[in-house]
């Protein structure tokens, strides 16, 4: 008994060391960036700077928060990403349920076609989308961007959710069908709770995509106060000549923080509903 305990302890110690090492490796560039963001502009870089900034200052953060329309950009980012998430997830959940549960003609063909469409480099679509937006008066509007984002994330979401729906045994639904539940009731009451981790992961994926996207955001939004965070900061720092590294890194840290908070908050909902649902093989 005690031998098993010590063996377990050893195993856990090893695992902890392993993860601390991995996390450190993953975070090295970010820690470096963080150190840079705390140093004043002129002394950025220089040997031995890592984790040891010369003149610690919060000036860079102050400048971004006060001299740039940071809060406005934050608001735009939130509106766009939440809007996209609602549209994309709303459309993709029903669609992927259909692709997972119904056997209809052309099902696999469409699924395969979708994945091929996704392979088309989106940057090449810029000109066509511009024409489309111009025709429908969607330039410089959030609705246009939400549609583009949602449309491009829909394919990913459908595939991702379908894969998970497939693993949920049909028996559960059949049982409730006998109880008189409709398809949609089943989807909302039974399938969705069971697929919670997949839905959360997919939604977060959509959220991050929009949060970090800057090319469409800066091309189709025409005034600086309509930019998203990523777009606004890209616009600020895109040019070599105007880039201040300490400011750039401070901006990078500020953009990432909201996403990290989201990550931390959703962690506890990530445990699969499958086992909790009481279904055994």
């Amino acid at each position: 008994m005690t031998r098993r305990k010590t063996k377990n302890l050893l195993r856990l110690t090893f695992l902890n060391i392993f993860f601390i090492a991995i996390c450190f490796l993953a975070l090295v560039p970010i820690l470096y960036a963080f150190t840079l963001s705390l140093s004043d502009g002129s002394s950025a870089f220089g040997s031995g700077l890592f984790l040891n900034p010369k003149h610690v200052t919060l000036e860079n953060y102050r400048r971004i928060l006060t001299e740039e329309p940071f809060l406005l950009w934050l608001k735009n980012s939130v509106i766009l990403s939440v809007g996209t998430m609602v549209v994309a997830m709303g459309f993709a959940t029903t669609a992927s349920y259909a692709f997972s549960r119904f056997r209809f003609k052309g099902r696999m063909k469409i699924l395969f076609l979708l994945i091929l469409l996704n392979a088309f480099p989106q940057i090449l679509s810029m000109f066509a989308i511009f024409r489309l937006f111009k025709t429908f008066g969607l330039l410089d509007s959030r609705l246009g961007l939400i549609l583009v984002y949602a449309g491009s994330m829909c394919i990913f979401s459908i595939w991702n959710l379908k894969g998970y729906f497939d693993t949920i045994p049909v028996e559960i639904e059949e049982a409730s069908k006998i109880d008189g539940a409709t398809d949609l009731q089943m989807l909302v009451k039974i399938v969705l709770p069971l697929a919670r981790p997949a839905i959360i992961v997919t939604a977060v994926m959509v959220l991050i995509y929009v949060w970090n996207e800057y090319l469409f955001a800066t091309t189709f939004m025409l005034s600086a106060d309509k930019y998203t965070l990523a777009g606004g900061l890209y616009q600020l720092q895109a040019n070599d000549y105007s880039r201040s590294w300490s400011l750039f890194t401070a901006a990078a840290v500020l953009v990432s923080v909201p996403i990290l908070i989201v990550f931390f908050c959703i962690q506890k909902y990530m445990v699969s509903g499958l086992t909790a649902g009481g279904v055994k093989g």
Partner: protein
Amino acid sequence: MKRILSSLLCGCMIMGLMAGCGQTTASSTADNTEAKESGNDTVKNEDTTEIKIWHDGDEAIMGTIESDLNETLKADNITVSFEKKSGLTDQLQLYGNDAANGPDMYFYAHDSLGMLAEMGILAPISDVTDVDALDTDLNDMTVEATTYKETQYMIPVYFETLLFLYNKDLWEGEVPTTTDELYDYMTAHTDTDAGTYAVVNQHSTAYNVAPVINGFGGYIIDKDGNPGLNAVETKEAISYNQKFAELQADGDYNTVSTLFNEGNAAAIVGGPWLVSSINDAGINLGIKSLSEFTLPNGEALAPYSGVQGVGVMKYAAESKKDAVEKVLKAIAGEEVGVDLAVNNNCAPANEKAYENTEVTSNEMVQAIRKTADTAEPMPNIPQMSVMWGPTEEFLAAVNKSDADIDSAAEEYEQAAETAISDMQ
């Protein structure tokens, strides 16, 4: 039963659709009200004309111009706003024909002029105002630079050249007057492993190597659009530059400017855009014109000059002709020139500005003006836009990957020719 089920489903589906749309309609109405509000604004100030200028440059410089223009044009009820757009030429390709969303004018370097003019989105300046009257005070070189196929499409505002910037506290003795002496100084004072350098330069960037190439009599592209990467003079220049490159760190913009700002490099070849960060770093800055260095062949270094100016979009020249004309007159004026020189160390295109004592005492501006004697305006033909790529690949291959100059020259000359023929 089944019928009820399916109709229920239909209903739910429609609900779902509406929920999806509900979100979108909500945001579209929000957009509409915003649009209405801004619409009201324009109705309120009916008699003001708003001129929107896109740029991709330094905010401080644009700020100087913007406030000067708004001051001058207040009486005419014209307001000018500068908006930063990164990737400006790409954006103009999309919005250049879009009167509703595009800008009225753009402010940019002159080298993309030919491309935009060929696309047919720019109005010749003569459509808006009397060019010759406007040009009388403007520097000839800048007027030449902003002229494409004998038509002037831009009003030059200021121009830039590369300079030799050095740290007076680090440089030992006098700055040499020949490039060979400079090289000797560099070999004696450079320790790459310790990370200390005598002179740094973006040695694989075409713009920064152009002084040597032009000085040797070589060319990147000639007036007729023929690339000259494999011309004998160009190859000589590039192999001469390679010697220097070995002693000039990585040659990346951020690397070399940081080396200089931190006192790890005694001198840097760079432009006025570096000055604000150099001053922030508290460096005791010395400035020397590149035309004061002589190459082994007896010629002076001849950098490219970049002329920054404004161009007018076709639709704006038609719909806002009077306002645009006033803006052009004001921006070409002496006042903007003086303010740019005094506040931002820019060398104004307006010659009258140089009569101001504050301008004559500005060392930077004088050095740039002096360099203009040997400087060549960057080519503004559309073919130039595809030359940067092959030229810089050539330079990087020679300086960073030890490629053989002759074979690399042939390879990239070929690449340049293909790129040019691809444009048609």
